[in-house]
């Protein structure tokens, strides 16, 4: 008999659908603790390269950024390639001064919807988020414009 299957099916036929239409009707599922794109506090980072050392995906390199950073005399900061990053959060965990934090921006938000820019600029977050990842060019301009603040973090 296939009756048990049919009876159960009727129950689900009249119940609300479980799926959500993303991104048309609702946003992707998020929690407070989702590990997403990084933010670097350049006023804390001492340039020790620990984040680079622990990154299992080897997607961090250290770049020199001109500016006034008294705690970081060599002016070396991590640059993260988000097209390689696995969002494991080890860099955040092992940073001795808590300069790196993670936002909740993940998945398709890290990419633009236009095909041209998806692959060329994977490092740039969607404009609407108003946050910028720790690429060399982007974070310098973001700091200048005040886009990154110390509060823009979720998990430290």
């Amino acid at each position: 008999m296939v009756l048990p299957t049919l009876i159960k099916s009727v129950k689900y036929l009249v119940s609300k659908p479980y799926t959500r239409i993303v991104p048309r009707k609702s946003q992707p599922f998020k929690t407070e603790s989702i590990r997403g794109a990084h933010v670097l506090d350049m006023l804390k980072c001492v340039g020790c390269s620990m984040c680079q050392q622990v990154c299992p995906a080897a997607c961090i390199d250290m770049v020199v950024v001109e500016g006034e950073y008294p705690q970081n005399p060599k002016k070396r900061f991590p640059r993260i390639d988000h097209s390689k990053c696995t969002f494991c959060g080890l860099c955040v965990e092992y940073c001795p001064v808590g300069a790196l934090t993670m936002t909740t921006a993940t998945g398709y938000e890290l990419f633009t919807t236009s095909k041209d820019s998806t692959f060329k600029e994977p490092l740039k977050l969607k404009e609407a988020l108003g946050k910028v990842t720790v690429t060399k060019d982007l974070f310098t301009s973001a700091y200048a414009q005040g886009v990154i603040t110390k509060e823009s973090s979720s998990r430290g």
Partner: protein
Amino acid sequence: MGDREYQVLYFGPQHPGAPGNIAFKLWLDGDRVVKAEVIPGFLHRGFEKMMENRTWEMNVTMSYRFCVEDPDHLEIAYALAVEDIYRAEIPENAKWLRMIQAEMGRVASHLFWSHFIGGSVGLRTPAYWAVAAREEILKWFARISGHRIYHNLSVPGGIRYALPENFKEETLRVVNFVEEKARDVEDALLRNSIFKARLRGLGKLSGEEALSLGVTGPVLRASGVKYDLRVNAPYLNYDKVRFEVPVGSAGDAYERSVVRFKEIQQSLSIIRQSVEELRPGEPLRVKLGLSAPAGEGVARVESARGEYMIHIISQGGRRPYRVRLKSMSMPLLTTVVDYLISKEEVTIADFPVILASLDPCPPDLDR
């Protein structure tokens, strides 16, 4: 085997009936499969070697990558093995939480399996309810660990993140939700006459056969052998909870399904008991040094697919000297498939059903 007399067919890796990144070369006589040759290597990444080239803390993110369906057991096994090298004792709280994590992983894996087995006989509707239940577990994981699939939650030394505030209520809510859905799927599949007709008597393995082929896990238990590491060689706090080990007798595809559905209920019961044991506020982690002492670490866990073992040799320093993984799907995809085809009349329509009933995780072969 001369190719001329038989029709040769490639099954997978994109075939919807193939269980993942794997292919089979099938020799067909009419619609009967007379020989199957497994073609591995679609996910060859050399996990063991990669782990030997990475530091202890990095390897957490490597340890689980070869089984998407059930990464938690692999992660926990790695953490246990490294703690064995460090001779570290982790907090009780972390042990209970690891058990919750492991059982949630097992339930999610079995629910996902019911999607495959349902799909293989054309019963896709109940399969979707199972996926919804699994989704609820993935969201639970996202809440406590920050990721849905690869959690990075159990690290050597304990648990990485503090628990969210309403952890207990949230966990019990998920358990209740999943329990209801799992029962619906179970009723809809196991009591369906088409399902029974397709699976009964298919892919039969006796207890001795299963043992001699090297099978562990639900497939072995469905053949009547009561062997479960959680009982036979308890790790974490499995000796402090009460649960049954479901055992079948017939050893066919249907019995395997019955055993898995019963295991879901048992796992949910273990989660309920473990949640009660958690002490909020007590520590979850001890910090281990960056350099490990020289020595060897071994861990064996009962994963959703059977026994998984990891053996790590350390010569001191920041990296392991040698990592050896003993996977759970190797016998299922090699010796068992060969044996079943040689023993019984397997048609091309039954082949995906047998594969789904074994529930292998093909990237295992490529570790």
